[in-house]
């Protein structure tokens, strides 16, 4: 097992060296006083907490160097609690270290393995017990037990079914339809192309009936970013270019990686950056991924204007917005 060489001799447990408080009565007295002082500080801390709770108003701010303006109520409440606990602990430890007996004691270990006799008896007990079940002879019981145990686990799983609805096509739908107006978020105002200057970015949502409530699960899918560039800045396929209107291009704001809001737009480079995992999308090339972990461009919304000149969606998104999922069926 090991190439054991001749070993040194174990010098054995070191002889106990007395501490100062063990031999010098003055040191002993001093240690006792120190412990008492620490207990006293702890008591003071508790009093500070009570004082702060009752008498320091919670809108009083004081200036503390380095920390700046601090809420005195919160600060002293915390400091009082910290003092009360910390010094209690310090006192107990100082007491143990300086005054309580500090001779080391030796305990002995025992091997955990049971004795051979115990093991044999154990095996016999188990064998006898299992034999009592008569599995070998009672084929009918064995079979039906298997069936009942197999089915027995199903109801608890089934009972969890109503935790939520089935997904269906939910992840592929948004509230964008052909003709839906783009409205500002916040504000819910329809937008004229002339409202957008070149270089500007606006967050929009699909228009809903006045004062109707938008559930958060819709806000998790519907947000769209409108960005206006000079038409010559685009490097788009004719098909994608046709989805823009007068230099205005619209992308889903929900990241195609993990669904965060892609909120950072760099005007100089015309890149959109997701603050969660830094996927970077090039607006001029239909939100192509140019950096980061996302594998797909942001879906583009086909936009145009209606009779009154307001921006509308010409069609719904042609693919699911947001992060991928197993049933997703488009590149």
């Amino acid at each position, binding site marked *: 097992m090991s190439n054991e060489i001749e070993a*040194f001799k174990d010098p054995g447990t070191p002889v106990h060296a007395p501490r100062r408080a063990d031999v010098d009565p003055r040191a002993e007295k001093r240690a006792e006083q120190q412990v008492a002082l620490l207990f006293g500080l702890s008591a003071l801390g508790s009093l500070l907490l009570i004082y702060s709770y009752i008498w320091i108003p919670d809108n009083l701010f004081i200036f503390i160097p380095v920390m700046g303006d601090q809420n005195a109520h919160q600060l002293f409440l915390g400091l009082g609690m910290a003092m009360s*606990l910390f010094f209690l*602990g310090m006192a107990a430890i100082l007491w143990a270290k300086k005054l309580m007996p500090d001779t080391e004691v030796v305990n002995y270990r025992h091997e955990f393995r049971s004795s051979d006799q115990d093991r044999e008896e154990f095996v016999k007990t188990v064998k006898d017990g299992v034999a009592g079940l008569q599995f070998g002879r009672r084929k009918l019981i064995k079979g039906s037990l298997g069936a009942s145990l197999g089915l027995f686990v199903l109801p608890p799983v089934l009972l969890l079914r109503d935790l939520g609805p089935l*997904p269906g096509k939910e992840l592929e739908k948004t509230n964008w339809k052909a003709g839906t107006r783009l409205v500002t978020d916040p504000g819910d105002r329809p937008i004229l192309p002339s409202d957008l200057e070149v270089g500007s970015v606006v967050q929009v949502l699909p228009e809903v009936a006045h004062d109707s409530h938008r559930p958060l699960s819709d806000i*998790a899918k519907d947000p769209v970013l409108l960005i206006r560039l000079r038409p010559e800045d685009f490097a788009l396929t004719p098909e994608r270019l046709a989805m823009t209107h007068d230099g205005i291009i619209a992308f889903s704001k929900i990241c195609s990686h993990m669904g*965060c809001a892609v909120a950072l737009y760099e005007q100089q480079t015309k890149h959109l950056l997701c603050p*969660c995992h830094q996927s970077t999308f090039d607006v001029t090339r239909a939100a192509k991924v140019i950096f980061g972990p996302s594998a797909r461009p942001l879906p583009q919304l086909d936009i145009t204007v209606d009779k009154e000149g307001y921006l509308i969606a010409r069609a719904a998104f042609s693919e699911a917005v947001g992060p991928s*999922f*197993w*049933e997703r069926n488009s590149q």
Partner: protein
Amino acid sequence: MTSAEKRLGAAANFVDERLGAASWVKKSLNKVFPDHWSFMFGEICMYSFIILLLSGTFLTLWFDPSQREVVYEGVYEPLKGITMSAAYASTLDISFEIRGGLLMRQIHHWSANIFMAAIVAHLLRVFFTGAFRKPREFNWILGIILLTLGLVEGLLGYSLPDDLLSGTGLRITAAIVQAIPLVGTYLTFFLFGGAFPGVGFLPRIFTIHILLLPGIFLAVITIHVMLVWYQKHTQFPGPGRTEKNVVGHPILPVYMAKAGGFFFIVFGVTAFLSAVASINPIWLYGPYTPGQISAGSQPDWYMGWLDGLVRMAPPWETHALGHTISWNILIPALIVPGIIFTGMAFYPFIEAWITGDKREHHLLDRPRNVPNRTALGVMSITFVIISLINGGNDILATHFDLSINQIMWFSRISIFILPPIAFVVTKRLCLSLQRADRDLVLHGVETGQLVRMPSGEFVEIHQPISDEKRWILTSHEQPAALELPASDARGVRRPGAIKNKLRVRLSKANAVAIPKVSPGELKEIEHH
């Protein structure tokens, strides 16, 4: 006998006649615990857990885990009149209107961070000293379970306030679940009670966070500590300490006073941090809405390395047969952590397989004396640190004026290169330290005193080290490599040749060591 003693005696008698407790309590009170500063990490874990239970219970008295939308009418001016979930509103109330509420929130969050940090430190201590070896493998696995549960519990905890930052964390969590092939979409809908963010998630994770997981924690921690008690604590090698004994202070009074005192110190330090250093100021983030986000979104540090892995993943997705598999999420968020945690759980058995060592071990290893294990540990730490750095790449980029793309490429490349380098360097360092130990035993300590010999030569006086010190430096074992010949004595090939070959190679690498000093060698050198 004083009257106080009489009364105590009567009470003890009452209990003992019913439970027969005296015999084992007596034995337990004489139980010995070895002392070492590194043994306190585990204690910090347990104490932080108690602090979490206490502060958490306080918070539940006012927290309303509901996604119901309310209009905030509290005292915090900047958010007045804003629609938000009842969960967020009640967190604001706890922070601003309940006296001591903010302090308790801070204590709860700080102690969660300390809990996780102490678990990691404890894990490293147990790993590097080999405390996980037989008979303590069960407890190692329980520890890995606690670490994993801690990650989940922490994530759920900082998700509950429903602020913009935590909602973003949940958005990412939902995307990870959704990425699981076949069942992911269904799982997300069941977890969240519909499409993200759903209607039922907060109340559900609240119950899991405050009841289910703490219950499991309590049970596992109890077993963990009971096993330490039953198997007795390991000890560092030293004079008089053997595999058969345990040397230290008895429970009553010294260990009890020290451990009890240490609980209050941990609590006191946590309270101090909470008083002076405010973390997670949720009122600055605003309520969660999926259409918004704050720049520099960061998870708590113990999740940061996972987020860093997700950030550095290459943009891979497979589209085939009408289905999508997101490797860019699956690999960094589920597969790699899965391999790491499984590997950690099985490590004691892997090491025992390599060494072929089936004996009990109660004396700890000095990390330098087990170079392979130590190098593996440092390699893993390097991996996690690079991931963690990448998890904060946006913060690093803005604070140090760096390019985020360059940090990302640095991480993507160095996650493959630096860990192996760390392994090699650590192994060399361990061997150098062994060499230094050997020199120390052979030649003693340099005193700095120069003596001129009659011949005119200058020599430095070396002082021999003490017997105790020499014992510490030489009492460890230096196991030889396993020998598993490919064929047996009669020339018949043994089964599992490839497995055996691998095992022999690993065992050989494991057995590399600088030979320790024997008494004979020392005597010889003294004669010179």
